[in-house]
């Protein structure tokens, strides 16, 4: 592909300074995948350069080359205008390049502070650790991020969002000149995203160059100076964020314009109740949660991080124990103790943490898609019908445009977004009456996102009950027929969907602390 791009390449804000990073003609191949083809990219000091593109476009791969994780096959990397080798993560660090990876890569058995300073521990003589200084410095970083987190908390016990904040803190602790953020906000809620933006703006004024990868289009305008778009491993163009409409960027990403249909809330008054939850409770995490979903309905769940939405979903699904509460599916009280019971009762749950709870990443796409539906592919004597499994897998690969060389590719080799699609395919194939989607679009590109919205609407239209837990309020508003809002383990209210409800309405309920609690929510 020629380096000629159909779009102009505007310079970053101030003057004609030299790019701090310049990547030229980058090539990268994996077995079966030509991940990067003749890619150009540059970064000015003091700019926020957004890197956009569909799932599997090659964004993470490009950044891994820049940060010394993958060797490039061809092309050159210039740092401060000089051709430079980045043979290892250590070399990248020494060059002042710091990266927040898309997939969390923390040591769960170590504390937050220990994670942040791994490899750079403050030391006393004889290799002794200065734990006090370690915790103090971590606390300082957290304070600068306005983050309330105990530096001595074990990372494995933190929520994903908190873990993501630890990753960010770690990247910040390097005081790098180049900061790469690969989907830092995928697991964050609005408040945390605001804090992150404050940090990013501060760094920008300090002259740090920031590469920002995200699938959240609304963030572009707010934070990016320039936008580079990639498609199919190729550089499509680089534009100034301020004077390029989002639609145009989307068009560059997906190669066409996306038509977004408005939400129409169906009248479900007469529809039978598919799932009813009564008095669900466990300790301080879930406090007397009751609600119901009708067939054909999409019930959104909104709330701040740690509000307990995931806990509620897992308790319904039997993944965690519950102390009290009834679960009624299709009018029948079901005794759900394990996920197997839940699936038996027709409930499916797509977890928010695909790597740990959604996928067997060492297995292939086909096996993962079939994982919840093996019974359907079992013939006499327990043998598997591989042909049927293959056909089913391929159908979903096509329907969800999962980018993979074949259905036998190991899932760990897919890009993050495509992995998420595999989990979705798994539950679509299972064909449940009640589907709980926990953050279904985490890490999914705009094009695919609208595909998934279509899909969720389609599921509802087929008469299924759909519960969508999402930390993106626009998404909740865009999808939900009704919106349940949680705060501190309680259901603080259920709002009607559609134009009548605003983000502010939701936030009010989401921050409704115990003191102002009123008996509300529950059954309609």
């Amino acid at each position, binding site marked *: 592909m020629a380096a000629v791009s159909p779009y102009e390449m505007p310079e970053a804000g101030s003057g004609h300074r030299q790019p701090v990073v310049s990547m030229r003609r980058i090539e990268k191949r994996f*077995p079966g995948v030509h991940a990067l083809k003749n890619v150009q990219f540059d970064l000015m000091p003091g700019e926020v350069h957004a890197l956009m593109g569909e799932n599997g476009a090659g964004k993470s791969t490009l950044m891994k080359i820049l940060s010394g994780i993958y060797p490039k096959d061809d092309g050159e990397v210039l740092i401060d205008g000089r051709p430079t080798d980045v043979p290892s993560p250590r070399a990248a660090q020494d060059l002042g390049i710091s990266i927040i990876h898309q997939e969390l890569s923390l040591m769960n058995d170590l504390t937050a502070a220990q994670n942040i300073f791994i490899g750079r521990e403050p030391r006393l003589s004889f290799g002794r650790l200065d734990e006090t200084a370690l915790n103090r410095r971590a606390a300082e970083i957290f304070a600068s991020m306005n983050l309330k987190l105990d530096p001595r908390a074990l990372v494995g016990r933190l929520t994903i969002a908190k873990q993501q904040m630890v990753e960010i803190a770690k990247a910040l602790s390097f005081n790098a000149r180049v900061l790469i953020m690969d989907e830092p906000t995928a697991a964050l809620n609005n408040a945390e995203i605001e804090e992150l933006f404050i940090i990013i703006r501060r760094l920008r004024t300090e002259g740090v160059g920031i590469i920002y990868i995200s699938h959240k289009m609304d963030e572009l305008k707010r934070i990016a100076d320039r936008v580079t778009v990639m498609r199919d491993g190729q550089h499509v163009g680089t534009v100034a964020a301020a004077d390029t409409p989002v639609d145009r960027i989307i068009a560059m990403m997906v190669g066409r314009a996306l038509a977004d249909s408005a939400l129409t809330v169906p009248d479900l008054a007469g529809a039978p109740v598919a799932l009813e939850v009564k008095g669900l409770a466990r300790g301080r995490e879930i406090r007397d949660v009751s609600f119901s979903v009708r067939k054909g309905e999409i019930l959104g769940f909104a709330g701040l991080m740690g509000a307990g939405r995931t806990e509620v979903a897992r308790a319904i*699904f039997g*993944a965690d124990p519950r102390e009290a509460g009834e679960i009624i599916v299709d009018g029948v009280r079901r005794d759900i103790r*394990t*996920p*197997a019971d*839940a*699936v*038996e009762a027709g409930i*499916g*749950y797509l*977890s928010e943490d695909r790597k*740990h*709870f*959604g*996928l*067997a*990443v*060492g*297995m292939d796409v086909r*096996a993962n898609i079939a*994982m*919840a539906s*093996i019974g359907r592919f*079992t013939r006499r*004597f*327990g*043998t*598997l019908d*591989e*042909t049927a499994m*293959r*056909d089913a897998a*391929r*159908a979903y690969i096509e329907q969800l445009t999962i980018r993979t060389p074949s259905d036998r590719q*190991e899932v760990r080799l897919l890009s993050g977004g495509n992995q998420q699609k595999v989990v979705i395919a*798994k539950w679509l194939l*299972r064909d449940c009456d009640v589907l709980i989607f926990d953050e279904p679009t985490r890490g999914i590109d705009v094009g695919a996102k609208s595909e998934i919205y279509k899909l969720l609407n389609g599921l509802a239209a087929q008469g299924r009950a759909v519960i969508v837990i999402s930390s993106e309020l626009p998404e909740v508003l865009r999808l939900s027929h009704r919106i349940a809002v949680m705060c501190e383990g309680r259901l603080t209210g259920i709002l009607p969907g559609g134009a009548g409800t605003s983000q502010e309405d939701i936030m009010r309920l989401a921050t409704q602390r115990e003191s102002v609690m009123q008996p509300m929510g529950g059954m309609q």
Partner: protein
Amino acid sequence: MSTVEASPRASLAARLFQSGAHQKLLAFASLVILLIGFSLASPSFMQTSNIIAILQATSVNGVLAIAATLVIITGGIDLSVGTLMTFCAVIAGVVLTYWGMPLPVGIVAAIAAGALCGLTSGTFVAKMKIPPFIATLGMMLMLKGLSLVISGTRPIYFNDTPGFTEISRGSLIGAVIPGLPIPNGVLILFLVAMAASYILGRTVLGRYTFALGSNEESVRLSGVNTDAWKMAVYALAGGICGIAGLLIASRLNSAQPALGLGYELEAIAAVVIGGTSLAGGRGSILGTLIGALIMAVLANGLRILSVAQEWQTVVTGAIIILAVYADMMRKRRMG
């Protein structure tokens, strides 16, 4: 969707290979090198009788290693394979010699006892959440003691059960093809390998075996009754140890209650040399067979060369490391 795939009914041999297809079985090269090396070093080595001796020497350890492979693929480990083998041999002895039951009853009893003990280990692991290492270590000790208790710390002989020694020593193949007196023990090893390979590659149980080792929690959250499947794998492995028990008892024409300790490490070594990962989620029966063969060829070859025993041990250790290293290198080069 159009049909692009190979024929869905692959040949048996293809099946044996298939479950380890993405595994790139390179331990094979080490085996070939060993074979060539020993052939050059000693003319006694590459003779039919010796090849058969090697195969026969592989049979018991091979069957045990297959059992261990299944458990290891789930991400567990089974330290009890050796003493369970002995326990099953003792059970066969009790049923056949002490109770005087007919041969098939003894065979079924040994395999059933193995499956039951495997199920027990599986229950410890799946239901009681005891780490497999401890659950099977405890089982190993318990079975070691129980074998002695049941047998009265005496070997049990099978002199009253004509035909029992045929299980391992006879040669059905030799009866058909006179030039090829492959003992039944080897045939049984091969059949067990085929069956295990089929189960791993083609059945629900096999699919879950890999899935459990790959990410158990995600499988559980897919609505699979992971505990039950895990117990099934341990039970299957136990049943296979029962077969090993029959093989060794038949070969020694006796159930030796004190035998079996130390066999677990040898079996696990064969599994790992064969490329199965102790972390679970990947592995193949063919690899394990090759691993077991490597161990047997090494032992046989060094003995044939009359290498001093202490040096045999040193060389064995070094070659195990080298074989796995060679495997690693090639895997890395192939990406």
